[in-house]
């Protein structure tokens, strides 16, 4: 105030000076009060801690028929009374000396957190807001937690027609979602239940968008720098899932949620499950058709995390193109579209692919022109490293496909333009938050049942003049292919 230059309006008076002094005193008093408050809070906290310690101690005494080690400790520092009660046998000093080991002090042991065993809360804790989406596995709606006022997404599991108790798919969904904790995996808050035994709801954080709707509505596709950030997030979430022995088995843009802070979250673990090494025969009815990998389409019964990586490749392309890469109308059309772009695999490229169940009954045109990928011409604006990443994500042979962990280190992410900071992402109005979502025009995840047997001819129209017009040709009995 005093440093302010004097204006010509200023009429320096004693009154003003007194007023300024009064204000300053007021401010100081407030400051002192605040400090006092902070100090008091600290004191209180300390007292509470002491009290808790005492309580804990009392509790341990109360259950003194329980041996002391049953008491769980949260803090890392060793308890004094413990060491007094059970004097630790020190290292044999001779051994330590012989090793030249100076560290004879207490080893610092990690203490692991222990979640409590507690029953589900009631769905009545939440107040419904609006329905977001209805899928084959349940209804998702927006709701508010009444106590905290937080807005969440509530997924009601469909259990009505179940005859074998709680469905194994829902068990897997909850188990894998609980295990796959990651910044880019949607956060499972809790599972709540209703009055009836078949009313079970999964409570997740509410995320404003899904990537599919967002891509459809955006006037311009994401920038390269934004694509890189999104890909890094997706790859890191997938790498964590795979490291925890979880396969998602339904990665697609409509299952990737995006918030207004530039983060994507992998959601919908309805098809996810734990896998083992060596892998066991698993159902082929996984992954939405457009994101399904060639080995699944060809009927491989043993597959691994590579199927998720293929889906990531499709998502990568979709982020650039703003539309799904392979939009097949049927399994066989899907294969045609894949081979059209990626080339028919040769036996060197993918040894043993001809022995896959569905591959035997399919005829593939095979000439020089049909092998090798055409990504370069499909993505003219993508850098060389970008094309290289895409082609390794979309490698036909699952054993040669890059892993999510390796892909994170791909040079593409170090090229200019650098990945954009999450904070710099644009924001969009949320559809899920306000209005009913549009029905998506993409095939839904495969339902339980028999795996389809593929037969017929895989057309590669559009690949070269040689195969143009394949779709007009008559196809033998069964069904006819429509490719465009």
């Amino acid at each position: 105030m005093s440093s302010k230059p004097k204006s010509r309006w200023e009429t320096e008076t004693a009154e003003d000076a007194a007023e300024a002094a009064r204000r300053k005193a007021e401010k100081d008093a407030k400051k002192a009060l605040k400090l006092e408050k902070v100090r008091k809070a600290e004191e209180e906290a300390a007292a509470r801690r002491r009290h808790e310690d005492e309580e804990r101690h009392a509790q341990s005494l109360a259950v003194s028929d329980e041996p002391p080690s049953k008491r769980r400790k949260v803090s890392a520092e060793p308890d004094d009374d413990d060491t007094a009660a059970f004097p630790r046998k020190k290292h044999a000093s001779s051994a330590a000396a012989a090793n030249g080991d100076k560290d004879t002090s207490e080893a610092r042991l990690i203490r692991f957190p222990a979640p409590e065993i507690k029953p589900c809360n009631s769905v009545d804790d939440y107040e419904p807001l609006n329905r977001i989406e209805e899928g084959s596995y349940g209804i998702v709606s927006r709701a508010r937690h009444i106590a905290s006022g937080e807005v969440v997404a509530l997924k009601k599991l469909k259990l009505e027609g179940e005859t074998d108790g709680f469905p194994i798919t829902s068990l897997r969904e909850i188990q894998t979602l609980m295990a796959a904790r990651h910044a880019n995996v949607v956060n499972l808050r809790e599972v709540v239940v209703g009055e009836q035994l078949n009313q079970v709801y999964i409570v997740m954080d509410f995320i404003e968008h899904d990537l599919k709707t967002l891509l459809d509505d955006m006037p311009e596709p994401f920038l390269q720098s934004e694509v890189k950030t999104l890909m890094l997030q997706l790859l890191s979430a997938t790498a964590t899932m795979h490291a925890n022995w979880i396969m998602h088995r339904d990665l697609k843009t409509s299952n990737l949620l995006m918030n207004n802070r530039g983060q994507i979250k992998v959601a919908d673990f309805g098809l996810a499950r734990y896998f083992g090494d060596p892998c066991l025969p698993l159902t082929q009815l996984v992954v939405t058709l457009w994101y399904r990998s060639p080995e699944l389409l060809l009927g491989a019964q043993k597959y691994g995390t590579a199927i998720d990586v293929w889906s990531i490749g499709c998502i990568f392309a979709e982020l650039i193109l703003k539309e799904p890469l392979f939009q097949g109308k049927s399994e066989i059309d899907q294969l045609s579209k894949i081979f059209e772009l990626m080339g028919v695999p040769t036996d060197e490229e993918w040894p043993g692919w001809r022995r896959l169940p569905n591959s035997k009954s399919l005829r593939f045109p095979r000439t020089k022109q049909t092998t090798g990928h055409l990504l370069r011409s499909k993505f003219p604006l993508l850098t060389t490293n970008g094309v290289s990443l895409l082609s390794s994500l979309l490698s036909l042979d699952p054993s040669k496909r890059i892993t999510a962990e390796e892909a994170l280190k791909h040079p593409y992410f170090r090229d200019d333009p650098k990945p954009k900071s999450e904070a710099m992402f644009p924001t969009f109005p949320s559809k899920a938050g306000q209005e009913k979502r549009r029905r998506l025009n993409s095939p839904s995840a495969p339902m339980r049942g028999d795996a389809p047997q593929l037969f017929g001819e895989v057309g590669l129209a559009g690949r070269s003049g040689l195969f143009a017009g394949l779709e007009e040709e008559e196809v033998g009995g069964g069904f006819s292919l429509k490719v465009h």
Partner: protein
Amino acid sequence: MVSIFTAPLATPAQLSTSPSQQSGIPESLEQKLHLVACRLIQAAGILMELPQPTIATAIVLLQRYYLTTSLTASPLLQTTLASLYLSTKLTEHSQKPRDLINIFKYLLSPTSPLHPPHLRHKDDETTERKSNKSLYYVPEGDYTALRSLLLSTEAKILRALGFNTTVNLPYTLAFNYLQSLGVLTSTSTPTKTPDGSLSNPLQHDKLVSTTFAYLTDLLSSPSQVYLTHHPHELAVAGIYLAARDHGVKLPERWWEVWDVERETLGFLVVVMRGGTYTAASGKVWIVEEGVFEERDGGEVIAIGPDSVEREMERLRNL
């Protein structure tokens, strides 16, 4: 990453106030019934050729469930059935409710080795007993009733556990730790020690199986340490005892490598040494409905709610 090391644990409050005891079941009776539940699950699992992790998961789920629910509210038979059924799903070894019900019926029938011998009728000797299928035949009505009980109990277990069904078992950790300790030299390159005590590869195999045996025994220990200790602590304790049994020398303070305190280890070793709940002579027989009694060097435990009710009445009047 941390997730395989942690398990949801019981709080001291949960341990000190058992719902079963609050509903009038004395502690000794509760322990007997818990033991019988473990025996039944273990036996059924073996007959169905289920892997040990599936069996152990079922037992841990059952123990967790009875932390929140009383034995009177959720009778033993349907709860054991439901927890085993749930665990086969969780561990990807799905079984049909029909098979489980049949197996349990057999285990509780007079033909089962768990059945007290003095209650087997002398007149229906082996030949007749084998042909008498009605002893372990489940009539359709009983089956339907038991099946719906099984499924509703399954839903109740899931609700009581807050759908947190993760059960991390110490078996794989123990094997991993044994490998890291370098005491499991592969059979192809047996170590040549002068005294020859460690060179026999078979001894190392025994080290693993003894460790696993300790861990399996702990499942039916009345201390319910699977509810109070994390899997790495159990694994270390199992290894400690197995190594001592086989005279395998391990480095000093090796347990600290896996973040286990000496005190914790000591407690678990005492529990393991204490063994499982044993009757006067160690033999436990199980019947569905009957009288609790000790005779012929064994103990008969009945699991039916009516028998439990009668036993509670008897103990009250003592």
